[in-house]
């Protein structure tokens, strides 16, 4: 089902992930998070932007374990744990944050 962002229509797959990663703009994350009743803070954006950088460099979405370690290294040890990430993204950092970031569903994520 396509989603509407600022008057534009974005194609998504059956699980709500953006069909084309290059279509992404920040408004996509805003609209998706509103549907989940979540307000995006700077901390959320740190993760979303980091995921996009990671995908740009490696062409995959990181596994939760890899993301956790990387976040700890980049944003501070207190943030490098799954409690922090699940606090931000209750549906799971890999699934929910990747979806907001316009990335495909992470490999091996059920």
């Amino acid at each position: 089902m396509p989603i509407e962002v600022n008057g534009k229509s974005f194609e998504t797959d059956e699980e709500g992930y953006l069909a084309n990663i290059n279509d992404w703009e920040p408004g996509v994350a805003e609209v998706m998070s509103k549907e989940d009743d979540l307000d995006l803070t700077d901390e959320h954006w740190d993760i979303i932007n980091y995921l996009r950088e990671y995908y740009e460099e490696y062409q995959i979405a990181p596994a939760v374990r890899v993301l956790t370690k990387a976040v700890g290294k980049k944003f501070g040890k207190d943030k490098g744990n799954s409690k922090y990430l699940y606090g931000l993204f209750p549906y799971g950092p890999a699934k929910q944050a990747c979806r907001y970031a316009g990335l495909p569903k992470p490999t091996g994520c059920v």
Partner: protein
Amino acid sequence: MSETIKKFLYLNRKAPYGTIYAWESLEVVLIGAAFDQDVSLAFVDDGVYQLIKDQDTKGIGMKNFSPTYTALGDYEVKKVFVEKESLEERGLTLDDLQHLVWEDEDDDWAEKDSIELVSREEMTALMEDAEVVFSF
């Protein structure tokens, strides 16, 4: 967590884009990395082409997944064996391959090389030593 750690060897024999094998293998490696096994990757025959640097897939309209190999270190995959003879038979050297590293947590996150060149004979020994071999 399982107590049993097995030696897994992922054997890559095919060039990256003509078939789906290379990408499938890489995906299985990344998924399997969550299971804390003793993982080695081996590249022989045309499989060595998977690690060539500066790949450009624009002309064939496929996603260039070669950058993903550089993520292997983050997934704790530290042992990447490349067969020397396979490189030589194709006029290639180690310098033609991507530089793959992993970070050693116990050594102040020093970057260490993942790729090790081995002879055909050593490769045979690696295969014999492995408990599980996935051939792609």
